């Protein structure tokens, strides 16, 4: 009796362990490459540490110093400006392009439009930024040459954000266009057909059917865009400087990189955690906004 039970018990315990064994590789990599570094960065954010040598515990001093640092608030404002002034045109243009490509008239040329609109996403961001740097050059730049002007887009602090925002719009439109296009495919044709039978014209269908149904997609795009926008780094730094963009136009991530470059890893980690909190706050705010409307 006991002999027949033992293998059964073993089988049961093996069955119980098996799922954990399957997810063990993920758990180990999650621990090694995410959880431990996250905890370690919290620890470093409470230290004064160059990256080598000894660490010195400073408590929340790094956070206090950052929160009382005018340049940090300035860089946060810059990031918000890049975010807002690029997001509005990106969302409008990419959504309208998606609607147009989905329309009956244009749908037959989808194979041409889709890759063309998506192309900027495929281009390497560093290469694109360097090209934009040339396009907006004062003397050699294509824009100034076409206009016959010498506008200092890359040196005048009042204009310096323009090339960056232009590039963000150019680069992001294709990505969100694809997301909106895939969202549009989920709208049942029955709905639009019914609206047409009821006498709705294209504009009415767009505002009364398409946009309300697309709200979950809008929510996704706004949240992912906001997260990406707060991590903005490459475009402003490459277009506006040889190394790091000047204070007047620097994005928030420069708070992290300048501290890394300056050998102050504690402060860099603290800035990173402030960024995490900001993104979380913005995400919760956006989710709340969409929830209310629903």
């Amino acid at each position, binding site marked *: 009796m006991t002999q027949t039970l033992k293998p059964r018990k073993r089988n049961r315990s093996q069955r119980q362990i098996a799922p954990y064994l399957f997810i063990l590789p993920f758990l180990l990599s999650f621990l090694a490459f995410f959880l431990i570094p996250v905890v370690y960065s919290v620890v470093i954010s409470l230290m004064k540490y*160059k990256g080598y040598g000894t660490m010195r515990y400073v408590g929340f001093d790094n956070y206090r110093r950052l929160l009382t640092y005018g340049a940090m608030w300035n860089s946060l404002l810059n990031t918000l400006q890049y975010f807002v002034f690029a997001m509005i045109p990106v969302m409008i243009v990419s959504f309208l392009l998606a609607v147009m490509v989905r329309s009956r008239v244009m749908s037959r040329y989808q194979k041409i439009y889709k890759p063309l609109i998506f192309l900027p996403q495929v281009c390497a961001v560093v290469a694109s930024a360097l090209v934009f740097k040339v396009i907006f050059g004062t003397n050699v730049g294509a824009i100034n040459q076409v206009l016959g002007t010498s506008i200092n887009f890359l040196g005048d602090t009042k204009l310096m954000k323009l090339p960056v925002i232009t590039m963000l719009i150019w680069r992001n439109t294709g990505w969100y266009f694809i997301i909106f296009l895939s969202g549009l495919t989920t709208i049942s044709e029955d709905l639009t057909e019914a609206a047409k039978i009821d006498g709705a014209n294209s504009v009415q269908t767009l505002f009364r059917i398409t946009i309300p149904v697309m709200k979950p997609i809008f929510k996704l795009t706004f949240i992912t865009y906001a997260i990406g926008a707060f991590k903005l780094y490459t475009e402003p730094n490459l277009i506006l400087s040889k190394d790091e963009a000047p204070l007047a136009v620097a994005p928030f991530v420069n708070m992290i990189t300048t501290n890394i470059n300056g*050998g102050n890893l504690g402060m860099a980690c603290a800035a990173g955690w402030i960024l995490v909190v900001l993104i979380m706050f913005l995400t919760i705010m956006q989710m709340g906004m969409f929830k209310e409307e629903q």
Partner: protein
Amino acid sequence: MKKLLALVLTLGLLATCFGAFAEDLYAGEKVTMEMAVWNSVETYEQINAALIQQFPEIGEKANIEVVIEGDGDVGIAQKMRLLLGAGEELPDMVRVNYAQFAEFESAGLLYDMSAAVEPYKDDIIPAVLDMMTGEDGGIYCMPQEAKPKVWYYRTDIFEQAGVDPKEVKTVDDFIAAGKKVHEATGTWIENYGTPLNAYDLMMILSGKDFSFTDENGDFKFADNEIIREAFERLKKFHDSGAFSPIDEWSADWQAAFTEGTISSQLIASWMKMHLLTWAPDQAGKWGCAMWPEEMQGGSDAGMGIWIVFKDAPHAALAADILAKYSFDPEFRHAVYSINAVIPPLESAKTDDFYASSDYFDASLRDVYFEALEQLRAYPYEPTFSAEQTIIRDYLNEYVNGNLSLDEALQKAQDDMINQIGNAFD
């Protein structure tokens, strides 16, 4: 007699030991060594090929791989910090600027290269040797290129405009010369577009007795007359209308040299390498002069340097190779042929090899050594990388008219206190 015999034997033993040490460096299996640089590997690879040609034992012992470890001196220093922090293998030879030297030297991380430099020591220009020497008297870096301040100018254009750089002695003379050359030829003798670089300021400050900190490492400079004057001077240049409004390292800047719309540059000696690349068809038209008398002295970051970390896999061999690389008079001819860098050696002062150049007139060598006599570096603190980011930003805020001088300097000082604390902490 016995004493003499003992002495001879002891000396013989010592000589054997030193001989064995020297031989050991190049004995044994071939090793792969890493040379960390920034931007581009091509020039270094050409120089390394010439090095192996002249010193075959290096080629037999080591395969030197040139690797890019950053996009500039700050980037490469950061990469080294990360490698040190992670306990990973360090490159054998690392190219940084003198601005980063204090941080690694004061932390006791660098290999003492005194033994390797010893055969060349008497030939090294004293100001350079002084910079190579650490707090304890050991030698912890070697010059990739000493970078005194020099004025490169187009001889043909200055002649056409009737401007002699030797007669330009003051800041006002320089502005007047800028206007005169622009009116006569349509070219600019400098560019002071924003954002200005930190080195624009540091080149001025390096010639003065100035530091951002007091002797205890506390930041205290907002009321300092030297930095106030430097800020005002750069704004005066920017606002004068005598200089091009384009900023350095922009696409416009390189194009301006290529097209010949910039006809001179108040800069440091390193600029010649860019001139060779950006404006090759202007060969024979460039000359070299001292900065206007009122602004002479100092350097751009002292020197480009080579450092070897104590924990580098082949530190002793790296030091020996770098000593040959930096100071061997014959090999330096080959280096000069590749990148036009004149070695900071006493023997080079009278070496006619450096007096000849297809690109520059005969003034290059003599002006370089005259400027080298006045080589001084800013007394870099271990936290200088962070300091220069802050001061550059407020310099540009002031030059662009967004802040007054008092506001800019006070805010810069406050930010350094806030972000760095104490420079020696």
